[in-house]
């Protein structure tokens, strides 16, 4: 992706007053967020604060009712697009619970995805040989066993392998905006380190990363430029990395008190 395509304005993702209902209940209650290219943002918050909803709404998961606000990516409205179109525009969501797809080979799955994205950009599709070469290189980059490429998507993968497969997919698809939804959940410290190293290898000037997490532990490995605290459907506090450490020490209680004060 040519850097000049986006002009001089680095502002990539803009979320304004986003209001989202799930099954009639308001989950996001006017959320604002701006993310620039090259930045890593952490979104933290207690369970039920709306972290995962935010991640899924940006990726386009069906079942969420957007009742207000808007979201733009590189100046273009995102919310009226199908999820596959958003992926083609550069959105990538690393799932908290990656889905097992029995009977569909990992390589075939990802080749289909990459070629769909390339096609939408007017690029030539990769043939099997070129794709394999790319896949092997990227697997190495994120430290994933190339044997997993031959297996069905996530089927029988360990928790760590699934998360690594998500980061591997991110490496192959080269998104403009990557959202990592609770990537640390269910990982032991070694797996967490490996997955984080993969993410760090993918940090780039023209890419933004949003890390959604409950615990600050992940942020020891993926060091964010900005930390936002989400509470009851709104971002109630933003700051630098130090904010995550404060949360670690004091929990989320003081945030709610501060917000309600």
């Amino acid at each position, binding site marked *: 992706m040519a850097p000049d395509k986006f002009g001089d304005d680095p502002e990539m993702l803009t979320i304004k007053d986003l209001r989202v209902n799930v099954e009639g209940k308001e989950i996001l209650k006017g959320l604002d967020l701006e993310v620039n290219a090259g930045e890593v943002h952490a979104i933290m918050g207690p369970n039920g604060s709306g972290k995962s909803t935010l991640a899924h709404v940006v990726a386009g998961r*069906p079942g969420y009712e957007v009742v207000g606000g808007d979201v733009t990516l590189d100046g273009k409205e995102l919310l009226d697009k199908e999820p596959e179109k958003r992926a083609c525009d550069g959105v990538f969501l690393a799932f908290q619970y990656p889905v097992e*797809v029995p009977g569909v080979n990992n390589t075939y*799955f990802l080749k289909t995805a990459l070629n769909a994205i390339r096609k939408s950009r007017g690029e030539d599709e990769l043939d099997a040989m070129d794709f394999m070469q790319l896949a092997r290189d990227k697997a190495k980059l994120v430290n994933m066993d190339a044997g997993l490429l031959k297996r069905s998507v996530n089927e029988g993968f360990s928790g760590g392998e699934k998360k690594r497969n998500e980061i591997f997919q991110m490496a192959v698809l080269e998104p403009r905006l990557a959202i990592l939804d609770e990537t640390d959940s269910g990982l032991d410290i070694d797996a967490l380190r490996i997955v984080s190293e993969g993410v760090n290898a993918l940090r780039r000037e023209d890419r933004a990363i949003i890390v959604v997490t409950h615990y600050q532990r992940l942020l020891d490995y993926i060091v964010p430029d900005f930390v936002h605290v989400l509470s009851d459907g709104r971002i109630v506090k933003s700051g630098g990395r130090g904010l995550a450490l404060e949360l670690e020490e004091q929990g989320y209680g003081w945030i709610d008190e501060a917000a309600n004060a």
Partner: protein
Amino acid sequence: MSAVMPMENHYADSFASIRGNLPGAGLPWLDDLRAAAMDRYATIGLPTTRQEEWKYTNVRAIAKHAFQPSPVSCTGLMEDDLGDALMEDLQAHRFTFLNGRYSPQLSRPGKLPKGAGVYSMSAALAEMPEALESLLARQADYRANGFASLNLAFFTDGAFIRLDEGVRLERPIQLVFLTTAHGETLSHNLRNLVAAGIGSRATIIEHYLSIGDPVYLNNAVTEAVLSANAGIEHYKLQQESTKGFHVATLQAHQERDSELTSHSVSLGANLARHDINSVLDAEGAECSLNGLYITGGRQHVDYHTRVDHKKPEGVSKEYYKGVLSGKSRAVFNGKVHVHQDAQKTDAEQSNRNLLLSRDAEVDTKPELEIYADDVKCSHGATIGQLDENSVFYLRSRGIPQHIARGMLTYGFAHDVVERMGLEPVRRLIEGILVSKLPHVEASGIE
């Protein structure tokens, strides 16, 4: 019953006029069997939905036709007309039956090893009737239903496969049943018999195909006797005309430590009914029954399986999957009967169905009857739709929705295909899956 009664006279008249010309006519034992079968048909007629075994499968569409028997001969076809039967690298001993009769022109028997014989049933009845007398119609009960009765009364041909003790076939035997359009609406009554000697092994494919879109009834019965330690891998590939009717039974009898593997794929036909039955009549016999049905439009498919565990330490594994779209309908009924002597039986059954449309319908029913106390029996049946979470996962990676759905459907069906030992058959079925699920390419999925 009233709807089907008029056809009794039709078949009785038809039988009276051709019985003298049927294969084996003049053999007293066979004449008696055919006459008894015709009598039985006169009594019971075609099944109705009032019978438990046919509760969900209404054969009125078959009953309303006055099917004519297979013509004496058909010619004019070339090998290329065999279409999907010409699987690359299959290297089978191929025997083709065109409109119910053996066609030497379309067959490539090749050289069978010593101790193995494949004959057309009509020729075998002419040349070696004594070999058949003690075998034919001993396993499949012609009284079971009207189709079984008609089959025995009218059968014109089929294959007789004989394997002597210890014979192991390297290459598969492929029986191609090809049906073409004909001036009249025909019913082909096909009869196959497999006699596998002690320790023998073979792979047998029954492949049903048609050219064009004719209306007909293929009514087939295959009997298989597996002697001790024999191993038979049986494939049934049903790709009939979507206007055709297909009613078939595989009836196996298994001796000690024998192994039967059945792979049944049902894709075509307006109505297809498959009865797959095995009697495990000695210790340590094993059968694996696998099936895949894919239906659309107004197709109807019915699988009825029955495993009789009669002696100890038998194993049966059933694994059937269906993918339904349009207004199609599927029935699965899996009966497992564990007799009192059959201790240490291990029986497993699974039937999973994927509905791709709102109007498709499945009736699935496990039926376990267990009279022994030390057995392991399990069964599971599911009917569901594509998992929307999985669809979203694929779409979130840039894959368009219709392709995502196609890939997930392929993935659902694929593990039945994976169980097949013959790679050329696997490739054929994968190719068909892909063509039935548009926008999925096969090469990469494997």
